[in-house]
C-alpha cells in the first residue's frame, strides 16, 4: 500500500511541477527555470524544518514564497528574451541554482548527528513527516490537497479575465499589447505564480522523499516539467495531470520491468506525440482541431 501511496506522492509533486510550467506556457513562455524554483522551495523549506525545527506549513509557505520571489526577479530579464532564447536563458538559471545547491553547505548538530545540507553529498534526513508520526496516506492527502487547490485556482483562472489575458499573450503578444495589456505585468505575474507553485512542489517533494541533492534538479527534470503541459496540451489543467499520470504512473512505475527501455520509450513517445498531436495528448478528446493562431 505504502508503495502505491509513494507513487501518488510522486504524481502529485510532478503535477505541481507541471502546472507551474503550464501557467507559463499559457503566456507562450517555455521555461526550463521551473526546476530551479522547485530546488529553491525544496532546500529552503528543508532548512527550515530540519535546522530551525519549524512546523511544516510555514516552512512550505516560506519555500514557495522564496521561490516566487526569485521567479519575480527572473521575470524581468526573461522579458527581454523570447522563444528559444528564453529556453536557453532559463536552462542557465536552473543550472546556476543547481550548482549553488551543489555548493550549499549548512549543517548543524542535532541529537548527536550532523544534519542539514552537505554540498555535493546532498541534503539528508528531511524527516519531518516520519518523526512527527505522519503516515504515508496523510502525506499523500496533504500533497493532493495542495494539488487540488492549485488545480482549482487555475481552473477558476480560466473563467475570469486574467486567464483569458494569459492566453491572449500566449497567442499574440503584439495584439495583446495593442489591446491594452501590459506584457511586463502579465509575464512577471505568470512567472511569479509559476515560481510559487514550483516552490510549493519542491517543499512537498523534499519532505515526502526526505532527501534532495543537486542531481534531482538537472535538466532532465526541467524537461519533465515542461513536457507535462506540452504533452498534455494547454486546453485545460487536466491535460497536465493526464500527462503526469501517463508518464510517472504508467511509463515509469507500471513498466518498471522494462528497465532502461523506459527512458528510450519516453524519448520515442515525445517524438511520436509531437509528430501526430503537436497540440498535446488532450487533442484526442477534441473533435475539431483548431490550429494555433498566428
Amino acid at each position, binding site marked *: 500500500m505504502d508503495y502505491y501511496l509513494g507513487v501518488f506522492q510522486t504524481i502529485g509533486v510532478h503535477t505541481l511541477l507541471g502546472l507551474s510550467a503550464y501557467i507559463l506556457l499559457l503566456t507562450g513562455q517555455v521555461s526550463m527555470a521551473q526546476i530551479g524554483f522547485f530546488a529553491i522551495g525544496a532546500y529552503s523549506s528543508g532548512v527550515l524544518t530540519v535546522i530551525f525545527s519549524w512546523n511544516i506549513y510555514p516552512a512550505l509557505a516560506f519555500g514557495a514564497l522564496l521561490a516566487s520571489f526569485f521567479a519575480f526577479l527572473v521575470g524581468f530579464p526573461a522579458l527581454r528574451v523570447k522563444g528559444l532564447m528564453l529556453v536557453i536563458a532559463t536552462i542557465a538559471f536552473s543550472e546556476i541554482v543547481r550548482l549553488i545547491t551543489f555548493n550549499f553547505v549548512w549543517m548543524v548538530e542535532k541529537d548527536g548527528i550532523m544534519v542539514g545540507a552537505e*554540498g555535493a553529498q546532498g541534503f*539528508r534526513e528531511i524527516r519531518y513527516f*516520519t518523526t512527527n508520526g505522519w503516515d504515508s496516506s496523510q502525506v499523500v492527502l496533504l500533497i493532493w490537497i495542495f494539488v487540488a487547490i492549485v488545480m482549482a485556482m487555475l481552473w477558476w483562472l480560466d473563467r475570469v479575465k486574467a486567464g483569458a489575458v494569459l492566453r491572449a499573450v500566449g497567442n499574440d503578444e503584439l495584439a495583446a499589447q495593442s489591446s491594452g495589456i501590459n506584457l511586463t505585468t502579465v509575464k512577471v505575474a505568470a512567472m511569479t505564480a509559476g515560481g510559487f507553485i514550483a516552490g510549493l512542489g519542491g517543499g512537498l517533494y523534499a519532505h515526502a*522523499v*526526505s*532527501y534532495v*541533492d543537486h542531481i534531482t534538479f538537472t535538466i532532465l527534470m526541467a524537461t519533465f516539467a515542461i513536457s507535462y503541459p506540452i504533452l498534455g496540451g494547454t486546453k485545460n489543467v487536466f491535460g497536465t495531470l493526464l500527462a503526469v499520470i501517463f508518464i510517472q504512473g504508467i511509463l515509469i512505475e507500471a513498466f518498471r520491468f522494462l528497465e532502461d527501455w523506459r527512458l528510450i520509450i519516453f524519448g520515442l513517445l515525445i517524438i511520436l506525440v509531437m509528430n501526430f498531436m503537436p497540440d498535446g495528448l488532450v487533442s484526442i478528446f477534441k473533435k475539431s482541431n483548431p490550429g494555433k493562431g498566428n
Partner: protein
Amino acid sequence: MNKFIKGLAVSALAFSMSAGVALAEKTVLISGWGAQSGPLKSFGINSETILKAAVDKINADGGVKLKDGSMAKMVYEYYDSRCNAEEGIALARKTATTTNTLIAIGPTCSGVAAASFGVFQKKVDDAGDTGLQMPLFTNTAVRNGLAKISQWTFRNTPNEPDMYDKLFAWIAKTRPELKTVYGGTETDQGHSAGTYRIVIIPAAVRHGFEWSEGPIEGVTGKIGEGADNVQKASSNWLMADTSFSVQARAFKKSKADIFVISSHPFTTCGILKELARQKASPKLIVGLTSSSSAEVMKGCPKQAEGMIIPTSFAPVTPEAKAVADVAAANGASADLHSAAAWENVMIIKDVMETVGVSANGENLQADRRAIRDGLEALKTTAGLIGTVTRNQEEGEALKPYVFVHAKGGNWEVLHDPR
C-alpha cells in the same frame, strides 16, 4: 529483449500470486535494486549477475530450511533504480509494502542509499516513527557512515577508514623515502569526494605524509576533520568532465611524491592520461576503492601502471576465485562491490535458517523483524577472502582487504595483510 520477456514473466507471476493462485512451491523472496541504466549501469548489472549466481547455488544445494523444517526455494527480484534517489525511494517503498520480500539488497549508488535509508524507521519499536520496516542489506554503496541512518539498514561494504589507514601505514613503513602527498577528487560523486576528504587525506596526514603545499588548516589526521579545507586545497573535477589539463598541471606543479586520485574509473583514466601527457611523474599513485575494477584496466592500463588501491575483493582464495569465474562466465565482473552480493546472499540464508522463517510471506512482518534482529546479532560473518567482523552499533562491516596494484593490465595483489 531477454529482460523484457523476463519482466513480463515476473509481472505475470506477481499477478498470479495476487490473484490468489496457490503456488506449488514454497519460496522465500529477497529483492535487490541498483543502477542498471545510465552511466553507472555496470554496478547494478554486476550485482544482479552475482546475486543470481548465489541464489542458484543455494537452490542447487536444496534451498533454505524453514522454521517448520521443510525446505523452500530462494527467489529474487531485481529492479533498476537508475542511480536516482527518487527511484530508489520508490523501490524501497514498493518492495516493503507490496511484495513478500523478507530482506532487500541494495542499492548500488551511495546517493541513493543516503536517500532511501532515510525512509526506513530510524529506531525499531518507535511507534511514532512511520518509516519502512524491512531489513536492507547493502553490498555496493560504500560512502562512509550510512548504515547508522536506520536500525533496519545494514551494509556489507568495505570499511574505507580502516583500509586507507592501514594502506598509508604500510606505505610509510615500506617506502620511507616518500614524504609529500597531493590529490584531487570528483566532487559531484558522493562516494569519491566523501572518502577523499573525510578518509583518505586525513589517513595520509595521520601517518606523517605532508600535503605538498604545506599543512592544510584543520586537518589533524582525525577522520573528517578539516574536510572542507581538504577539498579546497585539492585540484578537483566533475564526473562528466573531459578536460583535465588544468588539474593535471596543478598535480605536476605540486611535485608531490604521492598523488591521490579519488574518483570512479571514467575520470580516473582521464586524469591519468593527462598526467602522463604532461609527464608528471609521481613516485606513487593511490586510487579509490571503486576504481579497482575492470573498467580502469580496460580504459588506461598503461597510465594506471603502479596505482595502488585497497580492496575488499581479489581472487586470492578458492571461494573468491570461484565467484570471479562465475561472474566472468555470465559476462559480468566480480569486484569489491558485486562480490559482496554473494556474501550477502549467503549471510541472509544463514540468518534465515538461524531465526527460522515461514515461506511465501506468511508472518511477513514478524519474519522481517526476526531477520533484522538476527543480522544485528551477528558478530562475524564468513567473507570470500576471510572473516568479516561486524560493527553492529552502526550496522557496518569490517572486511578483510588486500592492497592491489595495476600491473601489466591486471590488478595484482601487492600486499596481503590478512
